[in-house]
């Protein structure tokens, strides 16, 4: 279709202007598509996918195909996205091509679809990480990026410096640490939870599985766990310089520890004591609340 013909019905443009416009449109189209890549990789069960993206959003979802699909959009040509497969491992990486680029030019956003048994290793300094329905082991590290896991299972390790963490309906084993990030652990069915932050808050509202171990620790801030009358756990809650507010009726231990009266604490067994719950804070507040 002739560009001149296209514009002449509405505007009285001369041929040159129309040509420039058309060239500009074509260039824009070409540039826009050059900043987007889409790749597909066929994988075997328990594939390992690594994503290294210093700045931007990473969204990972599970699907039923034995395939990894990557759609990546990057802000400029100052970065490039590489996607390579070696055996049963797919490596996705954002490479910085210029030392003088502005931060916004270095952003790349990923949407990745993976088989549900995939193992993930994700590194994202700033932006956001979200993973849904993936059941393989996972290791996520960020600096300022927040992390959200939903319906994940396996051995989950998450480390942030300041990014927050939310985990909903996750199972398996969870280890999360941060300095100032806060954690929300909701509807968990994990048998082992270790969560540690310095100044963030921790909310745990999940199940205490028989023989499960739940260790929540912070320096300051609030640690809150919620329980139901049918739960069963041994509780050890200690705040060195803060307070412990406990609503669970505990049977005191047979051999009580001698603790300084300066500590806030609650020790004892709730029902049969099948799970182990350890809550520790330096000068924060620990709340053990009954669910309504």
């Amino acid at each position, binding site marked *: 279709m002739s560009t001149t013909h296209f514009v002449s019905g509405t505007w009285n443009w001369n041929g040159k202007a129309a040509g420039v416009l058309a060239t500009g449109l074509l260039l824009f189209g070409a540039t826009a598509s050059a900043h987007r890549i889409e790749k597909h990789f066929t994988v075997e069960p*328990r594939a*390992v996918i*690594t994503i*290294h993206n210093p700045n931007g959003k990473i969204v990972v979802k599970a699907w039923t195909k034995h395939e990894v699909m990557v759609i990546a959009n990057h802000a400029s040509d100052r970065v490039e996205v590489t996607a390579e497969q070696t*055996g*049963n*491992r797919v*490596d996705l990486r954002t*490479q*910085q091509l210029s030392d003088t680029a502005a931060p916004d030019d270095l952003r790349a956003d990923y949407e990745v679809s993976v088989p549900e048994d995939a*193992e*993930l*290793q994700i*590194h994202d300094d700033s932006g956001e990480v979200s993973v849904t329905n993936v059941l*393989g*082991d*996972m*290791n996520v590290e960020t600096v300022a990026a927040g992390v959200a896991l939903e319906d994940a299972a*396996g*051995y989950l*390790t998450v480390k942030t410096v300041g990014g927050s963490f939310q985990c909903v309906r996750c199972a398996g*084993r969870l280890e999360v640490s941060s300095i100032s990030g806060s954690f929300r652990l909701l509807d968990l069915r994990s048998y082992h939870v270790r969560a540690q932050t310095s100044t963030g808050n921790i909310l745990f509202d999940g199940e205490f599985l028989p023989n499960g171990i739940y260790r929540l620790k912070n320096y300051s801030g609030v640690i809150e766990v919620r329980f139901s009358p049918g739960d069963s756990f041994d509780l050890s809650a200690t705040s060195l310089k803060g307070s412990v507010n406990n609503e669970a009726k505990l049977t005191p231990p047979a051999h009580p520890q001698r603790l300084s009266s300066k500590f806030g604490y609650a020790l004892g067994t709730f029902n049969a004591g099948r799970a182990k719950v350890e809550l520790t804070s330096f000068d924060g507040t620990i709340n053990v609340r009954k669910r309504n």
Partner: protein
Amino acid sequence: MPEADAIRLAQQGDAAAFERLYQLHNRRVYSLCLRMVGNTAEAEDLTQEAFLQLFRKISTFRGESAFSTWLHRLSVNVVLMRLRKKSAAETSLEEVTEPDEESGGPRRDFGAPDLRLSGSIDRLNLQRAVEQLPPGYKSVFVLHDVQGYEHNEIAEIMRCSIGNSKSQLHKARMRLRELLHEALRDKAREERKAAGGNLGAED
């Protein structure tokens, strides 16, 4: 010359910088290779190959991980590729031949309680047993228990998850226990034979 400078200069092709990096890391890389393959000739070959690959690729190192982690990842890959070429079937970190792999748990085999390993094994026994491990187990065991890497470092080196590293390590130790017990039983049997007695039931 500090390592950071040596890396920068090596990226420009400076020979002294290459030598400095070699000096800083050759013992660790060589020890790793030697522990994985068990003989000096092959370990030397692998060490040379690891450093060659390192120096060929050094311009791509951008500092996203520690240099030593990057180097050791290269070295482990070089060793694993060699071990896989040698073994009949392709092996991977996850590949095991243990019957209860599907259950994800360790073998329920406790060994004879009267043959304890304490006081009976030394470095050489362990070395021989490690040589019999599948490549994936061997890598994680050597990196963690022998070389002292943490699981998060091993996960980065081996491109696996921390959970996987921990589980492989545990399986490696359990398998080593079986191998060491077998070796002890064989030794006890030979000693009995040598003593001229026929004291117990034979297998």
